[in-house]
């Protein structure tokens, strides 16, 4: 018999004894506030993914990978631009410490973060108008000396905060090390030119052919600007202190690359070239030498094996693929020849300390080798040229003396990039310089506004570890490989060696991200909760809401959270969430309470007359 159309009188409608609304219904959870069953409260607490922590400029990598995964490329590009002024450049040249730190690397293969960054950077390059806008002008003028990665980054961040920024660059073209230290087949010049256009669009004035100490003095900077960022870099190449280093045909790594990059190179290499050094610049020099017409290129390093070399292993692999010979455990002690390089004298050598750049022990008693070459390129590091700087701001390493905020004493001068990082423990890489420039820009802003400077500190337990995540949800999946040009043909051209991701590849690769310790709105907690305790007003990162009055603390969501962003926090740590119930289930004293009252008074009442 159907009850359809049956009239239910008002007084019989729920709730009444026995029929109560389900917890999914309105008011249903008010009747049974079982939140006080809970000893552990689930809390969404985002942690720091290791990639973000390892990145020199702390890009929000998890954030943009997540956005790429969802197809929101422009949002992803805007997010990356918060910390990184030129993702199209770092997407090509970065030594990707993020990928080394990636938790996925301990599981199957690290995410190809750099390739996704390059995808976003190229997307940004194609935009007619950049997403970044200059800040509201605050009337302050800042000079940035040097337009390399650190100067570029500092100028960019300052312009976003509303400063009137002028970049002073001593070379004929801006770009610094990005232009002069990175060959065309890694970073095409037009990409960099476009990024520098973006700076000009932000209202930054770039003055080329202006050298501090020659065209502008320290006092000029002090007088004409409210503050100044010195990002002059290390410009002078180190010598190996070998005999005959002044002979014709001896080249130095960075000037060699710089002249080619600036288009002012007059070098004509012979068929046999030796490269001295084992770092990234040495590798770039060796590969560039092939492209400049050398036939046999030999790299000579002091390091005993490839593992000790202070370079990116991928670049080393690509170099060997192109046919560069690699010799270990030797040092060049003399350049032989009559006015021009004819051969090198090599002695066995090793580092006397455990680390690179420690003094070299050369075994001069051993029989020297003679190695015939037409040219030798020496790439064993750089040092600063700071004759214009007041002596009080120089330190014993020959760089600028700064406090931990990048400031020179009590002045409004700040320094960033290689000029302060040399010997400070960080590798001298583009991304570290960018991060340095960014931090210095924010510190400069604080000083100008008269705020106290605070060091950046991260508690170590906040960095998410693989063991704290639920790997059940992540099937093994190989990394998407970037395409490469054939080593035989590429070594004769200036074409870009590593190919870009297509859109599908970028989305696929971003989809591999574990989102370590950070909510990526995967909906898993919402699905596994055995009760309707998790509300989802909008599907977005970190916007789930746990109904604390009803959650019984069963921990299922915490155990099942794939990313580990849900944490169980002892309930007693919270002052909130106090609900006083009268019995286990009811908010009012129920039937049994009344019954017991009657039973208690039983003896005082007269027996019933039956």
């Amino acid at each position, binding site marked *: 018999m159907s009850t359809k159309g049956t009239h239910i009188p008002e007084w019989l409608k729920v709730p009444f004894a026995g029929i109560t609304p389900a917890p999914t219904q309105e008011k249903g959870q008010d009747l049974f506030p079982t939140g006080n069953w809970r*000893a552990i409260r689930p809390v969404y607490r985002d942690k720091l993914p290791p990639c973000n922590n390892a990145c020199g400029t702390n890009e929000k990598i998890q954030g943009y990978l997540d956005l790429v995964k969802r197809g929101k490329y422009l949002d992803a590009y805007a997010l990356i631009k918060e910390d990184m002024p030129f993702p199209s450049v770092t997407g090509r040249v970065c030594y990707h410490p993020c990928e080394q730190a990636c938790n996925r690397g301990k599981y199957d293969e690290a995410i190809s973060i750099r390739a996704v960054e390059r995808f976003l950077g190229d997307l940004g390059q194609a935009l007619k108008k950049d997403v970044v806008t200059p800040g509201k002008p605050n009337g302050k003028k800042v000079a940035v000396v040097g337009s390399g990665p650190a100067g570029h980054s500092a100028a960019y961040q300052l312009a976003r905060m509303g400063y009137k920024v002028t970049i002073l660059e001593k070379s004929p073209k801006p770009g610094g090390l990005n232009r002069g230290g990175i060959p065309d087949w890694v970073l095409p010049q037009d990409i960099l030119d476009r990024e520098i256009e973006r700076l000009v669009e932000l209202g930054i004035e770039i003055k080329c052919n202006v050298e501090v100490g020659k065209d502008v003095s320290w006092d000029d900077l002090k007088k004409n600007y409210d503050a100044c960022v010195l990002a002059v870099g290390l410009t002078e190449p180190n010598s190996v202190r070998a005999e005959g280093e002044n002979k014709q045909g001896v080249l130095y790594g960075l000037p060699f690359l710089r002249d080619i990059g600036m288009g002012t190179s007059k070098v004509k290499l012979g068929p046999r070239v030796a490269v001295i050094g084992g770092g990234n610049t040495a590798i770039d020099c060796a590969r560039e030498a092939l492209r400049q017409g050398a036939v046999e290129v030999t790299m000579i390093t002091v390091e005993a094996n490839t593992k000790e070399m202070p370079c990116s292993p991928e670049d080393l692999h690509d170099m060997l693929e192109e046919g560069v010979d690699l010799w270990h455990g030797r040092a060049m002690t003399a350049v032989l020849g009559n006015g021009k390089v004819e051969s090198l004298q090599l002695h066995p050598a090793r580092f006397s300390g455990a680390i690179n750049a420690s003094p070299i022990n050369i075994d001069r008693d051993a029989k020297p080798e003679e190695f015939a070459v037409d040219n030798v390129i020496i790439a064993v590091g750089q040092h600063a040229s700071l004759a214009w700087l007041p002596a009080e701001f120089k330190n014993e390493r020959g760089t600028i003396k700064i406090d931990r905020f990048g400031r020179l004493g009590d002045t409004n001068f700040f320094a960033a990039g290689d000029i302060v990082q040399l010997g400070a423990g960080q590798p001298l890489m583009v991304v570290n310089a960018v991060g340095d420039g960014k931090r210095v820009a924010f510190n400069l802003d604080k000083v100008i506004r008269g705020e106290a400077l605070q060091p950046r500190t991260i508690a170590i337990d906040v960095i998410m570890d693989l063991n704290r995540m639920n790997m059940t949800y992540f099937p093994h999946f190989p990394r998407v490989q970037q395409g490469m040009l054939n080593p035989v043909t590429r070594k004769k051209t200036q074409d870009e060696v590593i190919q870009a991701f297509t859109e599908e590849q970028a989305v696929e690769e971003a989809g591999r991200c574990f989102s370590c310790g950070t909510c990526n709105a995967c909906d898993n907690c919402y699905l596994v909760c055995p009760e309707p305790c998790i509300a989802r007003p909008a599907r977005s990162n970190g916007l789930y809401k746990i109904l604390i009055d009803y959650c019984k603390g069963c921990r299922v969501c915490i155990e099942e959270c794939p990313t580990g962003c849900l944490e169980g926090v002892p309930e007693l740590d919270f002052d909130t969430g106090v609900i006083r119930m009268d*019995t*286990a289930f009811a908010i009012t004293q129920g039937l049994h309470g009344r019954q017991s009252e009657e039973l208690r008074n039983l003896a005082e009442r007269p027996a019933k007359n039956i």
Partner: protein
Amino acid sequence: MSYTELTVWTRGIVMDKEGRDIVNSVSASARKEGKYAQAMENYVDNPDRTNAPTRKYCRLSDTVLENELTYENEHPNIVVLVEGTMVKGWDYMRGMPPGGTLVINTHYTPDYMIRFVPGAERLSQLVCVDAARLAHHKWLYYRLGELGLDRLSTEGAAERSKLVAPDIAAPLIAAVVKTTGIVKMETIKPMIANKNAFEMALTELHVMPLSKVAV
């Protein structure tokens, strides 16, 4: 003539035995001492549900218990919370006459816990004992997966361990007996399985004296 009510609030299944051990051992000791005593569990609270709050009752009297058919303790003199978080959830102080005692299993001190206690002016003392640390390390990390494994919703009928107070009940019994003198220490101690935790609790409990009431 003295009449005392003891109410234990505990969690269904995972800490059911602990609560039961407290009321059973106290009433058994009282009978040995020649008192009239009674211990029972509350079935209204649905104790066969994991984590559900459950009450256990115990009554002691020098004379015959007049209210032995009453199902709940209406005026508990002593309240024990076997799990510390329960301090936030219920009106366990309901019906407590002035001069009562509240014993909580927690690693916090009474200074912190007093903020959660409703009607604390009725207490003569607030006792906190870190039973989890004293008894067994598995109780430190309150995980259902580990605690609930050998616990069945059979009200103790199918329990494997026949021991009395092998775990966190032992320090809680010690705290109750030491601070209230409800039964004699020498009567109850031989019943307790976890003697080590029992004795450690005697020295390591935190007592916060509150308003004294003439009984």
